């Protein structure tokens, strides 16, 4: 069952990504592959470089060096807008919604539906509302009746739903969730995990950054451990457990037999896998 992920060509390949902020090295030669229908969890201490890595993938940050391939083709994003056009969506750790705009306006921002009226392109608010209501109803039941209300008046978790709805609205190929559960209640976390499974089943590649290791163990296929901007280990969840991950996060893998820290691009093939 794991076979499929190693054989099929990856949707996204990040190779040897470096990112320096002046003297600070946020990423030092980090590599990561992503496959269709697969969820990858990224874990690591605060400042390990998780957010920087996904920001590079979604075009918000430009790498100092390294290569990004999308379906095998080298690609570079100058802005999140370009990444979105290629089907890469992110839900940010710090929620990126505009408080005074409505749910619908936030979901469609930058990609509005319009209709022509006497040669003038006008917003098709009704259509956008209809689509938003459907999306939101699936994500956060009850909230669909408030699509015309400004996002300011919503709770943190509800804002999260709006951000997720925006990421889902245009049929993405890759969905990145940077600590999506941080603002959520237990019940909402369950819903988020179910959502990730659904996204996976519908063929998306999902990246989940979270400090909640049990969540990653339940929904992800692989877990990538990072420390100080580099890969420590890339593991299948069925071959590991929370204890091992925590040890790797803390030690950086130095005491282990296998050192994945220096750019092993294809760790899936590692001998740690059980049959």
């Amino acid at each position, binding site marked *: 069952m794991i076979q499929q992920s190693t054989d099929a060509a990856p949707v996204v390949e990040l190779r040897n990504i470096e990112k320096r902020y002046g003297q600070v090295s946020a990423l030092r030669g980090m590599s990561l592959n992503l496959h269709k229908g697969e969820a990858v969890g990224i874990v690591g201490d605060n400042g390990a470089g998780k957010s920087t890595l996904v920001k590079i993938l979604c075009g918000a940050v430009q790498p100092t060096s390294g290569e990004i391939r999308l379906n095998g083709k080298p690609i570079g994003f100058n*802005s999140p807008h370009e990444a979105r056009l290629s089907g890469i969506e992110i839900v940010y750790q710090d929620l*990126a919604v*505009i408080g005074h705009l409505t749910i619908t*306006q936030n979901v469609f921002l930058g990609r509005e539906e319009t209709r022509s009226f006497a040669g*003038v392109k006008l*917003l098709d608010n009704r259509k956008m509302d209809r689509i938003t209501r459907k999306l939101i109803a699936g994500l956060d039941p009850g909230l669909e009746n408030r699509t015309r209300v400004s996002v300011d008046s919503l709770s943190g978790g509800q804002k999260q739903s709006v951000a997720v709805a925006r990421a889902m609205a245009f049929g993405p190929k890759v969905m990145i969730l940077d600590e999506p559960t941080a603002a959520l209640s237990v019940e909402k976390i369950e819903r988020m995990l179910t959502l990730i499974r659904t996204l996976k089943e519908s063929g998306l590649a999902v990246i989940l950054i979270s400090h909640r290791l049990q969540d990653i163990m339940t929904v992800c296929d692989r877990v990538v451990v990072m420390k100080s901007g580099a890969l420590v280990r890339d593991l299948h969840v069925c071959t590991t457990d929370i204890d091992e991950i925590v040890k790797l996060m803390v030690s950086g893998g130095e005491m282990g037999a296998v050192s994945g820290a220096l750019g092993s691009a294809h760790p899936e093939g590692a001998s740690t896998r059980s049959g």
Partner: protein
Amino acid sequence: MAGKLAGEKLKLSFRGGILIPLVSLLVIVVIFGALAPTRFLTIPNAQVVLTQAAVLAIVGFGVTLVIISGSIDLSVGSVAAVAGIVAAQLVPQVGPIPALLLGVAIGGVAGAVNGLVFVYLRVPSFLVTLAMLTTARGIAYLISDGESFTVYGVPILGDLGAYPTVVLIAAALLALFWILLNKTQMGLYIRALGGSEHIARLVGLPLNRIKVSLFMLSGLAAGLGGLVLASRQGAATPNLGTSLELDVITAVVLGGTPLTGCVGNVTNTVIGAIAISALANGLIIIGLTSDVQMIVKGMVLVLAILVALERSKIGIIK
């Protein structure tokens, strides 16, 4: 649930809503109506107030968009003067209609310059437009050589400022600006820009184009305002529209469009314009001298800003 929805509505009416502006207008009308019922509450006086308000509204619609985008335009008074003088000077040479169009176009050019400097030289809008306030005023004196050009009796240009023409112009402009702001992508992007420039950039909105267009629109509106003002005065003078920007900004803010951006509307500006005009008119009627009038107007501006301000956003007023 119902209570929560009502709460949301109330909040809307507070910032960018129309309830408080309407109440302030009502208060102004009631006060002066009580102080001078026979002179304030008459149809001719209402026409005077509406005419005055129409001029503020015409210029104010452009400024409203700029303020909703999170910036400010201080140059409208001086730009109006240049437009008025250019149009008045050109009527004998090119005829009334081309002269009018050129006057408005000059306003658009000044606005575009504001926008281009703002965007590409990255100068805060209040500084750019403050510089334009001085520059355009200088140009007005330069091209007029300090003289005034009569527009009294000049076809079309001479009639623009009369009641009800000026009110009709304002109404037509209101419809245009309302559709632009509330029904088009450009309008939504103006709000998004005022709500969070960072997020607007993340989602890939064409911010530079929006900003330049905004200031150009404001310049065009100011240009049209200059023609109307000249017509009302009977002459285009180099001091035309001096301190107009203050009246206009007061009207916008009193209308409930906060300086912090994103919320507000051009309909609010209509209410604000009528309120500030009624106030000015009432102060004259009860016999206050012009220095006292200025003090009162200044206090109203501060009061309006205080009511409409969002303190949490105060760090990013541009």
